[in-house]
């Protein structure tokens, strides 16, 4: 590791920590108040918008109302997107005259973007028109990200001290998230990215003549705007096929740094905001710390494995699949961050990481992207583990378990464990089918344990709504498009419906003020317990599968055997 690598890492964590405070306070201000004298223009837009849409911002919804509105809204969005994709051939903004997207691919892509997964079974530049990109995908980058945050906001309201059924108003939460958070941040980030050379144009692709004299088609498009939100909203769906490894998506080391920061920025600030919303900054930052420890540990192991070099090739560095512009540290940092959050954008091919680094990325996915995680959904996912931890260990202080003054009882534990269990089941079952059937195996790019990792990674990425690909596996087949589509859909629905149901239940419960007999969840002991439960539950579920994947691959690599 060079000095600049170390400097990058340090700067990275300082910026994220600082961003947590600044953005966290900002989001708290946005979501907790209604009159923004300090934000005149957006608040005028907000109020106008409610008037036009006929929304009464003071109207509160219970969990069933909140959930139905959320689901209907996303369902309609999905239908529109499916239509745009399949009809793009006859719609405007299609300078390359690309044909309509075939049904299974359109189905997969629609689910992928509506669920904030942004799994891409296609290459953007060869498949999608400009209209599909900016009015279809970019719009859903915003909406799916905002949807994630609304779920978290509703969840935070469950911890009000006065029992009620109300969890807020979905339309207000959605509007605020878009107007005050995603739009301004995306605009700022796009401008920075354009300044670095990321393209933003509606003109057709250009043909260039290379030095050797051959002709090369250079794809262009309105990339910067989509990239800004793909990073900020933990979407990850690239404009171009190779995502942020493409120079037009990620032009310079500075743009690379900005994109890395922006993929963690909001997820990292949300625990802080959550803490402020429930009235205890400390409770929020405790969760933040658990996430930080997991992230840094994963990153440390990943970097260690990468810098070991490939022992089968006498210690040569793993440079296949990496951009020389970014080097190992930036690639691993991105790789770990993008899988820890539900982002899924890449600046290097994860399949080419050292086996252990690839495993860290896969574990990040398997745990449910709770290490900061997707915007909103990451923290709600983590809160499911918090509920589990409180339930298992809380009894040991001689009281029935409670979290933030609300009792954790049969219904909460049932819903929380289902939220954790279903995506895990999808990963295991999907991977088992793919690894034992011809339709699954025929898409593999590599053999042996590496092939198994390709499958495990793919199903983890989709079931947990990450959307990044390990690389090597051809997922554009009817089998993968359909099965992964189903995984994405179920994975997303689970992460929205059950936490909201828990919130609805907790909101009605009596609040018990803490006493000396209450198990405190705001200290490092709890952080340790939380991490322990995450690793043990996750480890027990996936360790056998991983041992037949990356672990055996790593050992064999040391013996000089590669796959």
């Amino acid at each position, binding site marked *: 590791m060079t000095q600049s690598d170390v400097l990058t890492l340090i700067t990275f964590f300082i910026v994220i920590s600082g961003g947590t405070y600044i953005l966290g306070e900002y989001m708290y201000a946005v979501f907790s108040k209604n009159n923004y004298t300090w934000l005149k223009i957006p608040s005028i837009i907000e109020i106008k918008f409610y008037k036009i849409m006929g929304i009464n911002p003071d109207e509160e919804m219970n969990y069933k109302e909140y959930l139905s509105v959320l689901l209907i809204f996303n369902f309609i969005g999905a239908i529109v997107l499916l239509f745009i994709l399949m009809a793009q051939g006859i719609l405007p903004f299609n300078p390359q005259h690309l044909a309509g997207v075939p049904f299974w691919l359109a189905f997969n892509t629609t689910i992928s973007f509506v669920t904030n997964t942004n799994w891409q079974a296609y290459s953007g530049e060869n498949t999608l028109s400009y209209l599909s990109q900016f009015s279809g995908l970019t719009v859903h980058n915003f909406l799916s990200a905002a949807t994630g945050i609304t779920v978290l906001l509703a969840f935070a309201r469950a911890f009000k001290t006065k029992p009620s059924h109300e969890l807020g108003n979905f339309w207000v939460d959605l509007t605020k998230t878009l107007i005050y958070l995603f739009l301004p941040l995306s605009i700022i980030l796009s401008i920075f990215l354009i300044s670095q050379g990321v393209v933003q144009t509606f003109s057709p692709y250009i043909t260039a003549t290379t030095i050797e004299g051959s002709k090369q088609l250079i794809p262009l498009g309105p990339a910067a705007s989509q990239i800004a939100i793909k990073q900020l909203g933990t979407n990850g769906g690239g404009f171009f096929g190779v995502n942020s490894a493409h120079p037009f998506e990620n032009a310079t080391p500075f743009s690379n740094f900005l994109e890395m920061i922006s993929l963690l920025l909001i997820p990292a600030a949300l625990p802080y905001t959550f803490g402020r919303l429930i009235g205890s900054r400390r409770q929020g930052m405790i969760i933040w710390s658990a996430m930080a420890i997991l992230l840094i540990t994963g990153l440390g192991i990943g970097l260690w494995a990468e810098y070991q070099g490939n022992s089968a090739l006498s210690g040569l560095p793993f440079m296949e699949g990496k951009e020389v512009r970014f080097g190992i540290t930036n690639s691993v940092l991105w790789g770990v961050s993008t899988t820890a959050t539900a982002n899924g954008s890449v600046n290097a091919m994860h399949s080419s990481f050292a086996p252990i680094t690839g495993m860290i990325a896969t574990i990040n996915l398997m745990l449910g992207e709770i290490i900061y995680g997707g915007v909103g959904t990451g923290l709600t996912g983590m809160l499911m583990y918090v509920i589990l931890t409180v339930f298992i260990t809380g*009894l040991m202080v001689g009281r029935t378990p409670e979290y933030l003054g609300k009792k954790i009882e049969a219904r909460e534990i049932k819903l929380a464990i289902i939220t954790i269990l279903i995506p895990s089941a999808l990963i295991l079952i999907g991977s088992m089918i793919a690894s034992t059937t011809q339709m699954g195996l025929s898409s593999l790019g590599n053999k042996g344990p590496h092939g198994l990792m390709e499958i495990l990674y793919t199903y983890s990425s989709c079931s947990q709504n990450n959307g990044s690909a390990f690389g090597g596996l051809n997922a554009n087949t009817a089998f993968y498009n359909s099965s992964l589509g189903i995984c994405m859909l179920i994975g997303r629905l689970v992460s929205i419906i059950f936490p909201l149901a828990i919130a609805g239940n907790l909101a009605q419960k009596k609040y018990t003020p803490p006493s000396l007999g209450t198990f405190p969840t705001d200290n490092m002991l709890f952080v340790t317990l939380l991490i322990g439960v995450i690793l043990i539950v996750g480890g027990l579920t996936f360790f056998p599968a991983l041992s037949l994947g990356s672990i055996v691959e790593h050992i064999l690599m040391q013996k000089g055997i590669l796959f």
Partner: protein
Amino acid sequence: MEKRKKDYSAFDKKIFKQALKDSFIKMDPNTQIRNFVMFVVLIGAFITTIITILNVINHEPFGFNLQLSLWLWITLIFANFAEAIAEGKGKAQAESLKKSKKDIIAHLLIDNNQIKDISATELKKGNIVVCTAGDMIPLDGEIIEGIASVNESAITGESAPVIRESGGDRSAVTGGTQVLSDRIVIKVTVNQGESFIDRLIALVEGASRKKTPNEIALSILLVSLTILFILAVVTLKGFIIYSEKESVTIGLSNSTIPILIALIVCLIPTTIGGLLSAIGISGMDRLIRKNVIAMSGKAVEAAGDVDVLLIDKTGTITYGNRQASEFIANNDTKASELARFAQSASLADTTPEGESIMDLAEGKYGLPKISQTPNMTFIPFSAQTAMSGVDIIEDNKTIMVRKGSVNAIVQFVTKKGGVFPPKVRSTADIIARSGATPLVVAKDEQVLGIIVLKDIVKEGIAKRFAELRKMGIKTIMITGDNPLTAATIAAEAGVDDYISEAKPEDKLQRIILEQEQGHLIAMVGDGTNDAPALAQADVAVAMNTGTQAAREAGNMIDLDSSPTKLIEIVEVGKQLLMTRGSLTTFSIANDISKYFAILPALFIGLYADKLGHSPLAILNIMHLASPMSAILSAVIFNALIIVALIPLALKGVKYRPIGAKALMVRNMTVYGFGGIIAPFIGIKLIDIFINAVHLV
């Protein structure tokens, strides 16, 4: 009151034998299906056994599968045994209760005051019966006429008779108890089969045991984990098939169905699954041994959660009567002289106050015991004079010694021509303001001084409340005293809050108020006017000496009728929850080692080199001798740990009032960290043993 000492030792021979028998009876799938975790083990044992039989028929080697099946069955038996032994203790208690339900003849009072003898089993609610000395009370009821001493040892184990009388708070009588003296007329208040003893028998036998809310929640977690591990193992078979095909040279694994079942059984939380109901039963049983009958497991659980205790002052915090604590002599009197006259004045005073004055004089002031002499005439207390005392004839002169309230003595000395010293009056005022009662002693016209009467706070009670505070429990004292006295005692005892001049409805009000703020309240009550508050409280302990209404409103009954029992009840509740949590944590933590035992055995030849060495052999960090012994060791450990933890499940994890965080650190170290380490050691030792005796 001395607690009944009956030995229900866990390994009482009779209980042990019965439990052993029951563990086989409980193998019935209809019983097993109620416990999903153990039901999975049952199915696993069944399949493994079938496969073993097929092995035998097909002349294949079957020794390993046979041992595996045996240990799976043993795992089940151990889990059943845990439950059976916990139930066994309750059954023993029920037996002794049933004995008190012998055939009783009831003297039914019919029209015209005539009496008809019928069997107690024919009695109906509303019947009126008469009991005289020597009669057994046929059924629960209320005395409507008369007073009697009753021996209630059948229920309480306490042989000293208690007084029961019509009207008031001591009118309830219980079927199966015996009238020792006098005659009472009783109105039967329950139907056949609903009597206190019937309910007791049902409760201690565990017949009416329902899963408590926390148990249900925990069961959901255990079922979910079980499903998760079954999935992990079933899909692992798929990954193994893939890996076998992809292995370059040799691709062998040990993934037979019995071995995969062994892996499932080792991973699913059998330890807590097998012990869960035993923990619940023994929680109630521990209460029974403290002579408290919980009407439901839910109430015991709630006891652990209680964070406000409503406590009556009298009997709990103070001894119940004011006691002399000090003699303050008037200026020109010696303290010993005051003590001497106070002693004489109280010689015939048999009230607790009078006795305490004697004790103080003889104890602190070291005066010799005195006894009545012919020259003494005692003046008993009368409401008119508000004084008591003694007239002593010495040298033909009568000395009149009196003790009484300030006003009474003022009148007395004035009449005798003396002057009441202003200093004594001001001292008396100070004493009264501090919450104590001044009793002035006068010898004829001379005022000797003041006896200070105080409500004496029980020794050690302040420490107990400090402990409670550490447990996060707030104590509220309820007293009929005036605010001043109440405040003094509250401060001395260290309670967090008090209600003075409390009327019965104040209790209910306070409970509702605290509950609205999210607290869980425990209280003790005995009177009929306590019933509404008892019904509202989360943990309501009714005293056995209390009225029928109070006993019905409570969700626990304290047979000893001891007001301090509440604290012990809370501890039992906490213990129950802690034991559950600790064993769950232990059970899950155990799984880590089992992966390291079974996975390398399972992956034996995957991606192996030409010599057959699998790279995954490095997972065998315990260096277990062979794949077969590794698997068997894990399964044996899994079974033995259930038996090893039965005593802990029955006894409960010890509760210490050291605060939640310290408690967590402690239990996490023992059961969490210990739960990770212990099986590594255990499995290794078993592996060494089974290789030494060549079981595989």
